[in-house]
């Protein structure tokens, strides 16, 4: 299958390039979590010792939540970490499995498309009509803009996975590229263990062999 092999290089390359952006986005989310920790400590110290709470602390936290909540979504998708029930789909193999994967991916693309467009409008309203936080009156639009941005990245990852699944549905014998492999409960458990132990194991579930740097 020469065509499928050549497709797979393009696919693998696309997947790897996107992965770099996803890693960066997840790193930004991680940085937001770290800053939330720092901000919390500053707030406690400022308030209890100097009687000077951080100006607009709650507003800052709420605005930063979008970073933590959304920026890692595509990264999560690549690693197959968004929750789903694999009791049934895990029993299928070959073409049936990839057709189901295509279906699930299409559902994801559909709803994300709606959320990107209408989440974008939600941002646009806050930008054009005005929207500020409750206390310090910070503008809300940058936080709302993160939704269509992060979801677009997620959308692209789903496109890659769709591409990968279609390729495998056509030729189930091909080497899986750009798809998140289903793990059974035992493999999930293995992951949990790896995470808990802090092993720097390559990412299970990603078949590109493109684990985090």
């Amino acid at each position, binding site marked *: 299958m020469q065509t499928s092999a050549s497709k797979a290089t393009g696919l693998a390359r696309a997947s790897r390039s996107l992965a770099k952006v996803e890693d960066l986005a997840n790193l930004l989310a991680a940085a937001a979590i770290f800053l939330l920790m720092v901000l919390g400590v500053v707030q406690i110290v400022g*308030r209890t010792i100097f*009687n*000077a*709470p951080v100006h*607009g*602390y*709650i*507003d800052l936290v709420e605005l930063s939540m979008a970073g933590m909540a959304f920026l890692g979504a595509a990264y999560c998708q690549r690693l197959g970490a968004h929750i789903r029930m694999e009791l049934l789909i895990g029993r299928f193999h070959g073409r049936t499995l990839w057709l189901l994967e295509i279906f699930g991916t299409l559902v994801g693309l559909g709803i994300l498309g709606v959320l990107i467009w209408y989440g974008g409008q*939600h941002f646009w*309203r*806050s930008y054009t*009509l*005005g*929207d*500020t936080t*409750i*206390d310090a*009156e910070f*503008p*809300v639009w940058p936080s709302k803009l993160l939704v269509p941005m992060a979801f677009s990245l997620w959308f692209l990852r789903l496109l890659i996975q769709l591409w990968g699944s279609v390729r495998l549905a056509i030729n189930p014998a091909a080497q899986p590229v750009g798809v998140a492999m289903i793990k059974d409960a035992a493999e999930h458990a293995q992951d949990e263990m790896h995470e808990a132990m802090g092993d720097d194991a390559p990412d299970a579930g990603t078949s590109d062999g493109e684990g985090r740097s």
Partner: protein
Amino acid sequence: DGPSVFWKLSMWGNPRALSAGMEELSKVVAEETGGKFQIKIFYGGQLSPARENLDALVVNGFEGAAICNFYHPGKNPAWMVFSLPFLPLGDPKVDKYVRSKMFEHPAIVADMERWNAIPYVSGLLPQYEILGKGKPPAELNDWQGKRVRAGGGLGSAMEKLGAVKQTLPAGETSIAFQRGALDAAAFPYTYAHVAFKINEEAEWFTSNLAPGTSECGWVFNKTSYDALPPQYQKLLMDNRDLVMDIEQAAYATQDEKNLPEFEKTMTKVTYSDEQLAEFREIAGKPVWDEWIAANKYKFDSQGVFDAIWQYAEEAKAAQ
């Protein structure tokens, strides 16, 4: 008679004084139309959280909602006038007159127009007072360094007295308050203090500081309102007084029950006219001027501010 219409109104939280008038309107409207015009309030933010009610109106998600100006200052800049300290809205009759007129003021209407909404009736929230723990602030100096939960222009006013403005989610307020992370909290007086259980631990309350209030009221979806047959529109508009009277009666009932309890369990702080004048001097005009200056390019902020005083004069003259 007319067509069958079903209106959904969005509100956060539980049924309370603020919603009592609207519940009555729903009954009246159903009766008058032989059950054809139904209005149902969905509580608990089922249809939308408080801060997104206007967003849901602009996309025609439902036909009406309660909103509070201070939840989203940037969405209703002109409405923020109601949160300025020391507006002449202490007398319930004056308050009702002024806010009814203000709900037709072009700038107030324009704020809602952007969200495809029309102002219906004010919730006529009573004036705020402050409940607190520790040394009662008998003198204005006593506010120095006190940590007070107060937002908007009212928070700015307290800061002018040297208080430290503290923001907390309403639900966590009582806990922080009781355990000394907070010295005082401003809420609509008296019912909201009781709703958030501030009174259970507080040791004193201000009885006549009346530093300001806010505007929580009902707005309708403009598209839905325009689509109503004229007789339904008229029915709604003719009953605005009824809605407001019921709201004010509900607050008064609460006061009747709460005030004796407050006086029994807490120290009552009453300021002299001189003290109040001084407070207004320090925290009134400067906050007003800041607000007018900060908003003058967005809308006629001076005009909005002046209108409140003008309508208050009219109301007093009429009494």
